[in-house]
């Protein structure tokens, strides 16, 4: 498909921004300055100042001499880039592919977009009018190539160059319109080549010899003979849906309806391609230029509209519409293959493979956080605290078996110190005191010695005993260290059923 590009030129980008914040400047010639080599240099001038002959790069003192009423502000470093980025983000409502074109322009890839606004002219008019109401001086043009659009926006008269008419449009433009280096432009003018049509038919070899490769590249790009790469500020996801609104939306039901519509569109597409989304982002572009967004994640790939809607629903209340939302975008950055036959096989069976369980876990993960959800698999360690590990998914299979050693159902996170009376060394104790209560031991099993894993942790071994008192309470206690070394301690570690 033939591509279409729009180039937008903000002629007074930074001065316009200052004027927005200090409206009284509108009626005065106004410049921005910065110091360079001990002199004050003008970096930008507004329309009134330019009319009176002030240009970028002049020394401030000269300008003051020309216009005594000149208003001056300090330029902010990097302001132009920040403004361009912000404006580019705002322009996403017109097309998903927007790139900045420093120092003072934007380039939009509008292929397939203008018909939504009723044609090329209304589309471009709408962009210009809305940027103008925001307070910026804007020149814009639409053409088949970036080069032509750029040149026409800055040096041309028309705003829309019809399809495949871009070469004709270039003919009457000056050589500056081709985005050339200043010395090349100067040389062209010196040779009397003041319009593109004067040199476009010259033999390529002599042009290359005189003006270099860069010149040839720019010319080819403007003519559409060579492709030009755009670097969009936000790379559109392959799976995404847009919903522009005629009127700004500011109510919760309105947002919910928008989300529902986007989900329906996206899920139908995913279903047709046998894909399911793992992550989704719902973005809301507000009238005032800010963006609100909510993210969700799923445990299994899913295109189940109802389920995804419920996940979003938990977070929709965090969206602040302010004056209203103009554009909704639903993106699916992570998409995986999803085969419904498999799903049907597990339907209604219950258990870990059931889709309903995965959906339930998704809801928990999105509401209270994934860190609260645990599933454990056996790990090949005897040390009790390390005998299990966290599973990464619901379906992960254990790599080893669960050992069937006697272990207590209730385990203290940190073993607690107890005072013990033991008659015979290396024998189970006779009684111990725990939380001020004396437990007389009637029956005991053990010891079960568990050694430290020296490659993980240094320390003494544990000798575990299972003990039971007269009432039938069963405990898991251990001695840390050897009895005969005199440096041992007793701990209680758990309660048996």
């Amino acid at each position, binding site marked *: 498909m033939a591509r279409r590009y729009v180039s937008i030129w903000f002629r007074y980008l930074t001065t316009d921004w200052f004027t927005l914040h200090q409206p009284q400047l509108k009626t005065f010639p106004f410049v921005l300055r910065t110091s360079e080599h001990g002199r004050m240099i003008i970096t930008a001038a507004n329309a009134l100042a330019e009319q009176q002959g002030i240009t970028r790069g002049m020394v401030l003192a000269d300008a003051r001499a020309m216009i005594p009423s000149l208003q001056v502000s300090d330029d902010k470093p990097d302001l132009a880039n920040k403004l361009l980025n912000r404006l580019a983000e705002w322009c996403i409502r017109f097309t998903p592919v927007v790139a900045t074109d420093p120092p003072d322009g934007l380039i939009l890839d509008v292929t397939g977009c203008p018909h939504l606004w009723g044609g090329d002219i209304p589309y471009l008019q709408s962009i210009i009018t809305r940027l103008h109401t925001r307070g910026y001086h804007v020149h814009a043009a639409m053409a088949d190539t970036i080069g032509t659009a750029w040149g026409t926006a800055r040096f041309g008269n028309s705003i829309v160059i019809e399809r495949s008419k871009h070469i004709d449009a270039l003919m009457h433009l000056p050589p500056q319109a081709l985005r050339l280096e200043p010395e090349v432009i100067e040389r062209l003018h010196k040779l009397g080549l003041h319009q593109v049509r004067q040199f476009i038919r010259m033999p390529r070899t002599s042009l290359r010899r005189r003006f270099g490769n860069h010149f040839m590249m720019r010319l080819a790009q403007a003519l559409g003979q060579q492709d030009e790469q755009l670097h969009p500020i936000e790379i559109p996801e392959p799976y995404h849906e847009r919903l522009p609104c005629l009127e700004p939306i500011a109510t919760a039901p309105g947002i919910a309806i928008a989300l529902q519509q986007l989900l329906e569109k996206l899920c139908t597409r995913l279903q047709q391609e046998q894909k399911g989304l793992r992550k989704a982002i719902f973005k809301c572009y507000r009238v005032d230029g800010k963006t609100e967004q909510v993210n969700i994640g799923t445990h299994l790939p899913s295109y189940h509209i109802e389920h995804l809607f419920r996940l979003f629903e938990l977070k929709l209340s965090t969206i602040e519409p302010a004056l209203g939302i103009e554009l909704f975008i639903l993106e699916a950055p992570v998409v995986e293959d999803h085969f419904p036959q498999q799903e049907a096989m597990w339907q209604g*069976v*219950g*258990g*870990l493979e*059931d*889709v*309903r*369980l995965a959906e*339930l*876990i998704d*809801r*928990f993960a999105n*509401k*209270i956080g994934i860190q*609260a*959800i*645990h*599933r*454990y*698999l*056996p790990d090949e360690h005897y040390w*009790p605290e390390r*005998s*299990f590990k966290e*599973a990464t998914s*619901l379906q992960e299979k*254990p790599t080893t078996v*669960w*050992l*069937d*050693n*006697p*272990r*207590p*159902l*209730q*385990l*203290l*996170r940190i073993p607690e110190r107890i005072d013990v009376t033991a008659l015979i060394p290396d024998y189970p104790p006779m009684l111990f005191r725990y939380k001020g209560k004396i437990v007389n031991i*009637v*029956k*005991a*099993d053990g010891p079960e010695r568990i050694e430290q894993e020296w490659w993980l942790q240094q320390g003494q071994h544990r000798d575990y005993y*299972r*003990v*039971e008192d*007269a*009432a*039938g*309470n*069963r*405990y898991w206690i251990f001695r840390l260290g050897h009895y005969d070394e005199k440096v041992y301690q007793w701990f209680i570690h*758990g*309660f*048996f*059923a």
Partner: protein
Amino acid sequence: MQRQPATKVSQQKADIFAGLQADILRLQGFKTVQNTVLDSGLGPLKYAFPNATFPLGAMHEFVSAKPEETAATLGFLSGLLNILMGSNGAVLWISPSRMLFPPALKSFGLNPDRFIFIDVQKEKDALWVLDEALKCSALTAVVGELPNMSFTHSRRLQLAVEESQVTGFLLRNQPRAIGTTACISRWYISPLPSTNEDDNLPGIGFPKWHVHLQRIRNGKPGAWDIQWKDGRFAPVYQPVFTIQQTQQQAG
């Protein structure tokens, strides 16, 4: 007119009574569930339940006062879950301060990797999670360790399980106040001295508990001794003392 034999008449009467009792249970909203597997292990305990079947799709409440009792409760509960889960069940375990040691479930024949643990700190979140989980029929059972539960909340939970037929277990460890709940049963499990096959062997035997079913809707409350032996419940039959006998012993 031919007279029927007396035994046959009484047989007919018994049939009528059984039919009427079943009707009453049905009218009271009790749904019959076929779960003969669960009852086989419980022995005399099962006659406490309505229709002599362990009520699934309902909330059960376990109260414990000490960590030792909590451990015993968990043991009894693990035994129940063992029968409930079969080979393909999944259990959700909700707890604000979890002390359960997953590998220990293995000794009750459970597969610890079929358990999903949700650790929520806030009581409000825990209730929400419990409510949502009980509505998910893909789960076999849901265990919630929530010491304090108001009647309103328990009623919500009971309504949720009645629709989804998930069995819910509420573990109340050291509750502030027992109060009334809409759970259909209330259990107190306390540990008993373990016994071996014969008492001469040294060491600890099979885990044994005193099960006190304080309250059961449509059933008969009671108390039993039960132990976990060879991977299944084994009821412990003891000579029953009458009141006079205990009084004689005491005085």
